[in-house]
Structures are given as C-alpha cells and as structure tokens.
C-alpha cells in the first residue's frame, strides 16, 4: 500500500471519528437530560403551578412555565409572522435584484448572528423608553425580534424555490404582483413557510437570555399581557440555582420537558414539510 493510500485512509477515519464526536455529543446531551430528568418528572409537575415551599422541594409543578413559554413563544411567533411574511414576499416579489434588497438580506443574516442577550438588552431599553415593566408583552416583543431574522430568511428561501414559470404564467393571466404573491407564491411555498415558522417558534421557546430581562418570572399563570410571565428555560435556570437537590431534580425534569417540546417541533416540521404538498406543482 502506498503512502497516498495510507494518507487517504487516515483522513477518512479522522473524518468518521469527527462525525461520531459530533453525533455522539447530541446523543450524550439527549441521554443526560433524559436519564436525569425522567425520574423527577411526574404528572403533578406538568399540571400544577408552584405552591408555597415549592422552591424548598415541596409540592407544585411548572405549569406556569409551560403555559408562559407557550404564550411567549406563540405570541412572538404570531407577531414575527405578521412582520416576516410581508418582508419575505417583498424581497421575492417586488424587488429581486436591487442593492437595497441585498443590503436587507445581509442585515437579516447579521441579525441572525446577534446574541439573544443583546435582544434582551435592546428589548429592555425599549421597555424603559415606553415605561413598561417586565411583562408577557415585553417578552413577546424581544422574542419576536429574535425570531424575525430566522423566520424571514427561512421564508425568503422557501419562496425563492417557487419556479419562475409559475410566477410568469400567473402574470401572463393578468394578475398583479400582489395577487400573484397571495395566490401563487404563498400556496406554493406553504410547506417552506410553515417550516420557517416552526423553526422560529422552536428558537423562541428555547431562548432564555432575551426573556430574562423582558418577561420577568412569576409563579402564577400568565393572565395579562402587561403582567410578568414565567418561561421554561428560566424555570430550568432558577431551579438549578437553588441549593436543594430535590428542586435541582425538577430543573432536570423541566429541561427534559423543554427538550421534548423542541423534538416534537422538529418532527412536526418534517412531517408538515412532507405532508402539505397536495397543491404543489413540481
């Protein structure tokens, strides 16, 4: 066997090893959370809010955080959707090759890379400006900003996949751009649009640093847009911060709940991407 064969084999093994390391760390993370979280997980945790003494290891659950997170991420995703979809359509329908559009795409990509704590800090400054306190609404705004670039670029790319012939045949029938966008593009790109939305939702529900500043935390269920709201990532964080092993156990269980939600979203987006293809022209 010559030197080049040996070199080839060596690097091939090194690459396989690297891939195993990367996938192994995924398995290790999921395994750790499952193994440590499952024993502490019970029905009460999912269905009750914290009672007095919960943070000393007594009765209660994290329903406040589960509901809070769903409200926060749900609201944020809705808000981001309202803003993102028009932007993505604009990028694809009205102005495809201008300088401005390239600049907007660049700035969305750059926003994608902005750390979530910065969104928290920025949201916090906005709230001070508006005289708001830490609240569900504040959290929703910060998370919506965080989700905006993810969703917009995802949709942008989904719409870009719509075949040009389809657009042209719609124009050829005399449709305005707007009618083409609503009637053809959205329908054709629907699976991609939903995947982008779910991806953004997943990012929103898992983020802690941005809601830390803006949504606050409470042991009650969220009841108003202007009151504070709990969230799962912060539930994990705060419970870990207590010195009581029983509460720390619950932090692991909370992390497990969060991970399961993320896994479910990931699976759902795959199913949707495959399942909603009835009206799609290939």
């Amino acid at each position, binding site marked *: 066997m010559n030197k080049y064969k040996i070199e080839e084999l060596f690097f091939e093994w090194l690459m396989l090893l690297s891939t195993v390391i990367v996938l192994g760390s995924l398995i290790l993370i999921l395994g750790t959370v499952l193994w440590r979280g499952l024993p502490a997980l019970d029905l009460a945790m999912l269905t009750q809010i914290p009672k007095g003494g919960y943070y000393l290891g007594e009765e209660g659950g994290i329903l406040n955080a589960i509901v809070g997170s769903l409200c926060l991420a749900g609201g944020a995703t809705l808000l981001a959707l309202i803003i993102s979809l*028009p932007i993505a359509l*604009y990028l694809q329908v009205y102005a495809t090759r201008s300088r401005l559009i390239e600049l907007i795409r*660049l700035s969305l990509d750059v926003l994608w890379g902005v750390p979530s*704590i910065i969104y928290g800090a920025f949201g916090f400054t906005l709230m001070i400006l508006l005289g708001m306190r830490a609240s569900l609404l504040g959290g929703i705004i910060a998370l919506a900003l965080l989700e905006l670039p993810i969703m917009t670029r995802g949709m942008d790319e989904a719409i870009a996949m719509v075949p040009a012939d389809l657009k042209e045949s719609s124009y050829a029938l005399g449709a*305005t751009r707007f009618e083409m966008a609503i009637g053809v593009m959205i329908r054709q790109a629907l699976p991609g649009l939903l995947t982008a939305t779910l991806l953004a939702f997943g990012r929103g529900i*898992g983020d802690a640093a941005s809601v830390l500043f803006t949504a606050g935390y409470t042991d009650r269920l969220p009841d108003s847009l202007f009151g504070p709201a709990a969230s799962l990532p912060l539930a994990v964080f705060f419970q870990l911060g207590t010195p009581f092993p029983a509460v720390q156990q619950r932090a692991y269980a909370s992390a497990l709940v969060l991970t399961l939600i993320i896994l479910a979203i990931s699976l759902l987006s795959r199913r949707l991407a495959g399942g909603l293809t009835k009206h799609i022209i290939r």
Partner: protein
Amino acid sequence: MSKPYDASMARRNRIRKDIFARRIMKGLTVLAGLLVPLMLLALYLRARPILEAQPLTELLTSRVWRPLKGDYGFFPFMMGTFWVTSVGMVIAVPPSILTAIYLAEYARPRIRALISPLIDLLAGIPSVVYGVWGMLTVVPFIEKVAAPLLKRWLGVVPLFNSENPTGYSVLAGGIVLAVMVFPIIIAVAEEVLSAVPQGLREASSALGATRWQTVRHVVLQRAAPGVVAAVVLGFSRAFGETMAVLMVVGNVIQTPHSILDAAYPLTALIANNYGEMMSIPLYDAALLGAALILLLVVLIFNIGSRLVLIRLIRR
C-alpha cells in the same frame, strides 16, 4: 340600486390594492433593515453615562469591578469571554470542518440525509439544556478526570494547572460552546464546500489524485475563504452565548491563567446582574455598555464573514 359592473374600476381597485400592499411591505422591510442600527443606537444611548464618567480605555483595561464605589473595569470579563471562546473554538474547529468535509465530499446521499437532520437538531437544542448537560456531565468530568490528568501530565505548563479546580472552568465553558457551534460551522462549511464546482473535483481526480488530495489541494483551496467565514460565524456565536456558558464557567471575577480556572464572561456579567442594575448609579449604563461591546464585536465578525459568503455562494 346596484351599480353596473365597471371593468376599468375593478382594475383600478386591484392596482390600488397592489400599490398599497407594496408600500406596507416596503415599509416593514426597510424597518427590518434599520433594526441593527437601531440596536446600536439604543445601546449606545443607554451606555453613554458610563462612557462619559470613565474614559473608554480605562473601562477596557481596568481590572477593578466595584459597582458600589463606581469602579467599572471590564478587563476581567473581556478576558473571560476571550478565554472561553478561544478554548471553545480550538476544540470545535477541527471536528466541525472534518465533519463538513465528510458530509460534502465523502458521505453517500443516503448517509447525508440521515446525518444532516441530526445536526440540525443539535442546532435547535436550547442553550439552557446545553447548560444542564454541561453541569451534569462536563463539569464533573473535568473535576474528576480531566483536571487530575492534565495536572499529572502537563502540570508544569501553567495553562493546564490550577490551584483550585472545581470543574466549573474555562475548559467546561469551552467544551459546551464547542458542541454548540458544531452545527453552525458544519452547516456553513458544508454549504461552501458543496458550492465548489464539480468539474474542479473531476479535473483533479482525472489526473489520478486520491479523494483526500483533491479535497486538500483543490476543494479546500477554493473554499478557503468560506471555511474561514464559517469558523468566524461560529466564533461570533460562541462569543455571544450566555446561558450555557454562565452555568458552567464558575463566574469568579478574575483574569484566568489556566483553562482550569473559573472565568466570568461579559455575557454572564450582563445576565447575572440585570436584576439590580437600576438600583446602583451607572450600573445599568455599565451593563448596557458591556452589551454594546458585545454587539460591536459580533457585528464586525458577522458582516465580514457574510460578505465573504455572499461572494462565494451566490454567484
């Protein structure tokens, strides 16, 4: 009385609707484009009091952090960020790039279709979950296995020796960050490598080059700027990561001298102290100043690497 159908009226309405929609969409788009400058401006305005109270050079180089006495020195925190991020990148870069090469150049389509979603999944795991994993697995591993071994074998090198290794350390933060940036570097690098024209690979293998020779001399050569950009994107992600790092680095205000020392990165500083930042003079300005520094660094790295990627991929 019903009006007679007027075709030109209907058409005018449709066109009016089109123009209206266009204006709204354009408005939102421009607003989104202004978000980055707006963030910079907002953070700058909030941070201005501290910049006026202390010269920037002193803020960046002072090691003293006593908010109650009005001393705000960012140096230990910047070093904390620097150490954790660097260690993370040293660990993350080789396996990420090799995995990206494997996926782009070696793996069969079926294998790639199996592995790629798993890597996406890794990217989707929330940072607190990374933090929990770090506390439960990485920290004890360092305390019980890595630290004693490093001390025994490499203890003479200060970098690997520590007086009081608890496991909560730069190394723990680095390992957690490394795993967090794997998917980012892999995804971007794989895309860059796949953008290298197939004809170039064939030109090399038609000359009898082995696959690795083609990768090393031709593909990587061509994709080099993009691979660097992928690494820089990973770096800036690691640089700004907050919760996961905060949970495993120990948060001791000091300049680390060893990878087994505890550190206190900028992001952790902001997250840990936001609660009291309105109650001490200048504290909020100092914390938002830290956020501003963070944002500036991340912006520079991100813009740079994105420009490179645009040139390489969208051609």
